[in-house]
């Protein structure tokens, strides 16, 4: 502990974590710091090294170099002490297709030496109930849909009370309803005091539940921090609806912003206030507050009919960091 004086409050900490397969570096010097109690979104396109990182966090794969600490303990040397406190869903659910859902959970629960056999049946039933699979508990898993398997995987992570949940793509294969349920589940886990580390390549799913996020691209961590910190790095815009376009632009220019009229043809008189925003400017200078802008506009007798600050969505930031569509960094 002495060499990590600040790591006590971290559920996951990696230092220069690196994984090479042959001469291909899959995970490159990743420094993750996941505070306890956070819902930590781990973002990145497919193939960016998320799952390999998760495998190293859980001791499934060894790091080529670097260190991993989970719940304040070194991994993988303290694996036996750490993993009973960690629930995990790794690279999709995997089960014995010839066993029922509840038999599968029984089986995996026996693998944990510290899971008491006395309460096993009750715990399995409760975990199934928590993910809404009680009705299919006795059905063989080969008859499960992908979404049901995904829920069963989540149930497996919840068999014991956990301090940390590592959920790799938990909403994969789920319909919108199921996705919402997973989000609610993540919220309730976090409310119960657990740290949730959730990976996804679909940003929208994570954005609503996370307190923190990190973005992986081509094996490297390209951004990390609280959601607000991540958003702040991106560009924000102020948008203004007013008939007094020219005066408004002048005010914004004086404030050091670079306004553009959205509709250059529209004159001040024939703008219909209902059709949309007429002036917009990138909020380049963070010292200029939105309320300050409005005050200046009103003082200049601009008829402010609408004013909004559009924060860059995390999506924009995500795309900016990782590339667009299939053209992602490899």
């Amino acid at each position, binding site marked *: 502990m002495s060499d990590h004086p600040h790591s006590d409050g971290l559920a996951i900490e990696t230092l220069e974590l690196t994984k090479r397969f042959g001469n291909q570096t899959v995970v490159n010097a990743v420094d993750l710091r996941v505070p306890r109690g956070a819902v930590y979104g781990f973002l990145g396109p497919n193939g960016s090294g998320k799952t390999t990182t998760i495998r190293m966090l859980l*001791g499934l*794969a060894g790091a080529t170099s670097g260190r991993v600490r989970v719940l304040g303990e070194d991994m993988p040397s303290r694996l036996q002490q750490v993993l009973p406190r960690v629930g995990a869903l790794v690279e999709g659910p995997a089960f014995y297709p010839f066993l029922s859902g509840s038999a599968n959970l029984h089986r*995996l629960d026996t*693998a*944990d030496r*510290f899971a008491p056999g006395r309460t096993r049946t009750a715990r399995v039933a409760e975990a199934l109930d928590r993910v809404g699979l009680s009705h299919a508990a006795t059905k063989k898993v080969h008859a499960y849909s992908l979404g049901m398997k995904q829920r069963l995987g989540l149930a497996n992570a919840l068999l014991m*009370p956990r301090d940390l949940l590592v959920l790799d793509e938990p909403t994969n294969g789920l319909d919108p309803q199921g996705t919402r349920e997973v989000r609610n589940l993540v919220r309730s886990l976090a409310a119960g005091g657990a740290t949730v580390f959730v990976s996804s390549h679909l940003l929208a799913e994570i954005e609503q539940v996370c307190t923190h996020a990190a973005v992986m691209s081509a094996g490297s961590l390209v951004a990390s921090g609280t959601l607000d910190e991540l958003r702040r790095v991106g560009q924000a815009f102020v948008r203004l609806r007013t008939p007094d376009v020219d005066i408004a632009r002048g005010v914004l220019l004086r404030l050091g912003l670079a306004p553009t009229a959205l509709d250059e043809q529209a004159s001040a008189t024939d703008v219909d206030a209902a059709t949309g925003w007429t002036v917009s400017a990138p909020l380049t200078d963070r010292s200029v507050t939105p309320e300050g802008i409005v005050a200046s506009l009103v003082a200049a007798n601009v008829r402010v009919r609408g004013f909004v600050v559009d924060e860059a969505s995390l999506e924009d930031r995500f795309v900016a960091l990782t590339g667009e569509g299939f053209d992602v960094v490899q």
Partner: protein
Amino acid sequence: MSSSNPITEVSPADAPERGAAGAAFGWALLASELVVLFRRRRTIAMLLALALIPILIAVAVRLSSNEVSAGQGPPFLDRITQNGLFVGITALVVAIPLFLPLTIGVAAGDTIAGEAGLGTLRYLLVAPAGRVRLLLVKFAGAAAFCLVATLTVVITGAIIGAILFPIGPVTLLSGDTISVADSVGRSLLIALYVTVSLLGLSAIGLFISTLTTVPVGAMAATIVVAVTAQILDALPQLAWLHPWLFSHYWLGFADILRQPILWDSFSDNALLQGGYILVFGALAYGRFATKDILS
């Protein structure tokens, strides 16, 4: 259940300490392994196929009108008509070269590779099952299969033999005669001998199973190893190698049918199999303990 919310009975923080005092090994995993193994349709099908061997032998001998003369066919075949207790032993002799290694190859080859193929290996390991513990449990499961497979042949043989042929005191190879009860004991002893014989192959299968995520490949490789060993054992030019082959003592249980029992072959065999278990267990450990689980 005294508590309405059983999950709260154990808090995650104190779980490891609890376990250190209580479940040192966690035998539940072994129990679960055996249940999963023997409830599996494939395992049941293999045991049924093995049970068919004594049944086929007994029915064929019963239906054929010609007397089997001594020395014809598999060992002990000529004795079946005199005493039904020999059906199980004859069936075992028939099953040892191919059928038993085939089923052991499936069971042992599937141990780790099967879990890897399904993807359940990663969930067992993050539970955490512990890699060494999982290997031990898997080997124990394969050994249990060896025992059950052998007993299936012997017991089915005894039952079908009792139904189709007379049962009486058994004349041993040494010329002595032992009671029916004693001969049942000898049959079980032979089953034990054959079980021990197959442990070396099981350890090889376990090791091969750690090398791949394709269970069928591990199964096939294990079976090929078993067949190859027997071919090598049949080549007189390789006589120096024969005592080191795990299959060398496979059919050497005749000493158990003497009075008094000669234990030499039993102990030689046990020693050899123990050596194979150690070597291939160590190889499996060396491979599996630090292997990246990417399946």
